[in-house]
Every structure is written in C-alpha cells, then in structure tokens.
C-alpha cells in the first residue's frame, strides 16, 4: 500500500529546504528568524538522513535524526539564552548590531 517515493525526489526537497534555510540565515537580520532558518537547515539534513535510511533499509538514518533533534533542542536552549542577553544588552534583535568581535 505504501507509495514508493523515489529517494532522489526526497533529496531534492531536502536540498531545497536547506537552501531556503541558508538563504534565511544570510538575508534575515532578526535573530529569531535566523534561528528559525537554522532549524529549517537542520531539518533538511534530517530529512536527507531519513530518506537515505529508508533507501538502504538501515536504522542509522533514524538514529541520526534523533540525534539532530536532541542537538536542535540543546541549541535552542542555548541560543534563546543568548537571544535574551543580546536583546537586553543591545536593545534590538538585529544580529548585525552584535559585531563587537571584529578584528
């Protein structure tokens, strides 16, 4: 009953998602959107893993996705803390304002 989705198509969707995320990271200045774009990129990678796992019938892909989920959760926890600090210190959510680490 299962519908066979060719792995190429899934990978194409993953690549598209990844590019979308990357574009978001590069063009958005609001730090919240930046984080969201990052999540999109990570999920794109997760999608690719699952597709590859399904293709080879191996559980590795799903394990990797769970790892990515854990990573994303941890990242969000840290990142939101940073966002809070940034918004408090710079009074804005513009990521370009926080460029004090220049050379």
């Amino acid at each position, binding site marked *: 009953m299962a519908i066979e989705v060719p792995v190429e198509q899934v990978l194409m969707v993953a690549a598209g998602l990844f590019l979308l995320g*990357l574009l978001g*990271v*590069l*063009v958005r*200045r609001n730090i919240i959107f*930046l984080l969201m774009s990052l999540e999109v990129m990570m999920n794109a990678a997760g999608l690719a893993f699952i597709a590859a796992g399904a293709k080879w019938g191996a559980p590795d892909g799903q394990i990797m996705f769970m790892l990515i989920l854990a990573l994303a959760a941890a990242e969000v926890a840290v990142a939101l803390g940073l966002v809070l600090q940034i918004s408090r210190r710079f009074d804005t959510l513009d*990521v*370009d304002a*926080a*460029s*004090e*680490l*220049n*050379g």
Partner: protein
Amino acid sequence: MLEYLWLVPALPLVGFFVLFVTEGKLPDKLVGVIGAGSVGLAALVALGAGAEFVQSGEGSYAQSLWIWMAVGNFTPSITLYLDPLSLVMTGVITGVGFLIHLFATGYMWKDHEEPEGLSRFFAYMNLFVFAMLMLVLGDNLLVLFLGWEGVGLCSYLLIGFYHRDPENGYAARKAFVVTRVGDTLMAIGLFLLFRELGTLDIQTALGDTGQLDPGMATAIGLLLLGGAVGKSAQVPLQTWLPDAMAGPTPVSALIHAATMVTAGVYLIARMKGIYELAPVAQFAVAIVGLVTLLISSFTALTQTDIKRILAYSTMSQIGYMFMALGVGAWSAGIFHLMTHAFFKALLFLASGSVILALHHEQDIHKMGGLWRKLPVPFASMLIGSLALVALPLTSGFYSKDAILLTAWEHDTGRWFWAGGVLAAFMTALYTTRMMVVAFFGETKTEPDDASRINMWGPLVVLCVLSIAGGWMGIGVLDGLLGPLGEFSHTDPVAVTTVALPIFGVLLGWLVFSGRLDLSTLVASSFGDALRRFWQSGWAFDWVYDRLFVKPFLWVARVNKRDIVDLVFRITASVTRGFHHVGALTQTGRLRWYAANMAIGLIVVFLIVASV
C-alpha cells in the same frame, strides 16, 4: 732592610686603603699625616734597602711574593726585583714623591670641592705611588702592566680631581683614552712576547732573547714603543699631556713631570735586550724622541699658560731621554730622567706656589714683577730654569751633555745631535721668556703669599737636588748604571753644545725684556700663522678630532637605535602586517561568516566535482 722591600709599595697602599675606607671622615691633619707619611716611610725603607743593596755589591735582588695566576705554563709571579735601574726609579718615586706629597699638604689644604676632598686627593696620590712602584719593581711584564694601568688610572682620577668643571673631566678622559691606545699596543706586544718566548718574566725573557727571531724582536720592540709613546706623551700620542695640566699642580709635578710620564723611558731601558736585537725599533725610539723634542720645544715658545709651557717642556725633555735610549746612551737617558725629575718637580711646585698666591691665575702675561714679592718661589723657579736650560754646573747640564755628546759619537747620531742642540737653544729661549714675562716687569696681579714651611721646605730641598743632583750622578750613578762616557769639553762640538743654550738665554733676555724689538716679525701674516700653528701644538688635536673623534661621534649618534635590531623590528612589523590583513576578514557579523562558509563549501564542492 732588603727583606722589607715589599714594604716600599705596601706602605702607600695601606695609606690608600685607610683613606679609602674612612670615607673622608678623618680630620684633615690626620689625612695629611697619613697621606704624606706613608710615602715618607716608604722612602725611608727604600733608602735602607737601597743602601744595603749597594753595599752587598750584588747585581740584583728579587723578592717573590706569590704567583698571581697559574694557567698551564703561564705563571706570572708577583716578584719585586731590585737592580740599579729600579733602584734609581724607586729613589726618585719615593723621594721626590714624598717632597711633593709634603708640598701638597699645604697646597691642597683648602683647595678642594668637597669636605672629603683632601682625603680623596691623598688616597689617589698614595694609590699612584703604589702603582708606580709596582711598575718599576715588578719583575714580570704583567706586574709592570698592573702598575702601568694603575698609574694611568690615578692620572685620570687626579687630572679630573676638580670634577665639577666638565672641561677637567674631558681632559682626564682624553689622557686616559689616548694613553690606552698606547697600552693596547703594549698589551699586543706582551701577547706576542709570550707567544714567542713562553714567558712574561722580564729577566727570563731577556735571557732567552737568543731564541727570538730578529723580525719578531723588531715587532715586539715597536709594540712596546707604542705603549711607551702613549705613557710618556711622545709623538704621535702626545696630545693629552698639555690638557692634563687641568689637575692640581702637585699632581702635575708628581705624575706629569717626575714619575709617570717617564715610565715609557723606564720600559724601554728595562727591555734593553730586545732593542739591542732590533736596531730598527731602537732607531724608531730615537726618531720619536727627536721629533717630539723639536715639536714641543717650538710649541712651548708660544704658550701663555705657565703650566702648559712646563708641560711642553716636559715632553721635550722626555724626548731627550728617548733619543738617548735610541742612540744607545742608556745610562745617560736614565740619568737625565733622574735630574729631570728633580728640576721639573721643582719648577711645577714653584709655579704651583705662584698660582696659589695669585688665586689660580696661570697666564704668564697677567703675572709680571713677582720676583720681589714671592722670593722663595722665584728663587726656586730660577734654579729650576737654570737646570732646565742646562747651564754648566746644574744637574741638567751633566745629563743633557752626556746625551748630546754620546749622540754625536753614534753612527747616525750627528742629526740627532744637531736636533738636540737646536732644541736646547729653543729650551733656553722659552724658559727665559717664561721667567722674564712672569717674574720681571711691572706687577699685574697682586700676590697673596700664604705658603708655609710644608710648602717651601720641599722647594728648598728640590733646589739643592736640582743643582747637586748632577754631581752625584757623575760619582754614584755611572757606577750603578754603567759608564756615562768620557767627554772632552774642549773640542768644537762640545763647546757648541754648551754655548748654544747660553746664547739662547741671552737672546731671550734681549727679546722678551723688550731690548730687541721683533714685533714686526711676529705680527707679519706668516709670523702670526706660524705662531698659531705652534700654539695649537702643530695641529695634532685638530687632525685627530677629524680623523677619529668626529667619525666615532657620528656613528654613535646615527646608530643609537642599533641597526642590527632593525632586522628584528622589520620581522615584527611584517608579522604584524599579516595580522592586520587577516583581521580585516574578521568583521564580527554573523551573516558574513555564514555567507563565507556557504561560498567556501560551494567552492570545495565544485573542486571535488571537477576532479
């Protein structure tokens, strides 16, 4: 007494040590007693030891104290060596030295800048006497070198004694550095001697000269001559002596007339064995003497500072001694060294009395008419001058006569004789000028004579020695040092030798007392140029200044920041440049980093794909 020979240098050293350690806290009277007393005691011990030595009839006496340093076969020992030559030198140093110290207790009484100045002065003077005694008594060239450098140091310290005037400091440093140039040559001479003979023991080395290659002997002779030239202020290293007159007058008398400046003569006489192997070097000694003799006697004629006149006169008299050694008149040279020590010390001390009485006026043109007001200094100056001019029966006559007549008999000696006689004539001329201008005519500065017995006492003793020292020479010295030579005083050469100085005195009297007017000659442009040339000491200072001093100062100024460091500074700046370029990419913008990462990734993919 001979076994107490070590006390002779040790006593002044103890004097120095006591004065040094007490830091000038002793009362001035005690300082004088220690300062002069230590040298006086040394003179007594030297007298006793000398008498015993002469009585014993031995040729030499050596007293070994300890091995200075022992490295392999290099074992110079601190040994005191007494022979007629060092006995004469020791006698002069302690005897004349004591008289000058005694004089200085009066001269320096109030004449110092700091409260502890008197103590410092006598400390330096005692150290000098110690060093000078080590120089003449040392049986090893290294010990001699110890004394040699030690006297140079004390000379530096005492020339710059009034150190608040930067001029004096300059004169002192000039004296030290210029003589050090000579010392360097001498040190190289010692290295060479050690390489050739494997020892620096004077007696051992002179006994081994048979193994010495004549070329090496010449090289060693010339190098040692270099040292002697520096210390004895001979051409071409003579320029420091006139400036050295910045020191207190007793210092000029002791160091720059009687003892230290004759160290070069002593060195050459001591190393006689080397020079006998090296005729070229010995000839060079004579030439140096002759050239200095002439240059300085002409210069003395144009000086106005009484001490500078005496300084140039000292140079020329030492020139006589060098010439004597060069033409083989060894004992006559040492004899002249001794008589010169008497009369030149006398002249300096007497001029010191005059200078003190005139409150440090040294220009002879500002003196005048002093003979009536300062009788003791005047009489002393007169007697000293007579001996300097070498009029018959004075001590200078015997020694100078012996030198000139020996020169005449030497193969190439006639030129030396002629030069010596010409210089004797000039000596008479400038001495007469000094006496006439300073002591006769009208009074220009009122003197204020405060001299006491400790000042005029030594003058009287030195007067006696300046006259009678020569008679003693005939009897005693030629027994000790070897025959001075037999001269008949009737042939034309001898008569000329005696007559020219007398003629010089007469001419000088006529000219400088105004009885013979030469002012048009002197005022002519040529005369004036010549006078200035002579007055500058034949422009040696001018040449050295441009040849050595200015370039050195220029390099010092330009290279203050050390050009070698430039290499490292450039390395550092290049590194820092890279750092700045790298830092430009570090904008701090998160999105810029992300974009770069993405582009980098794409580039890597493209590269991988294209392979």
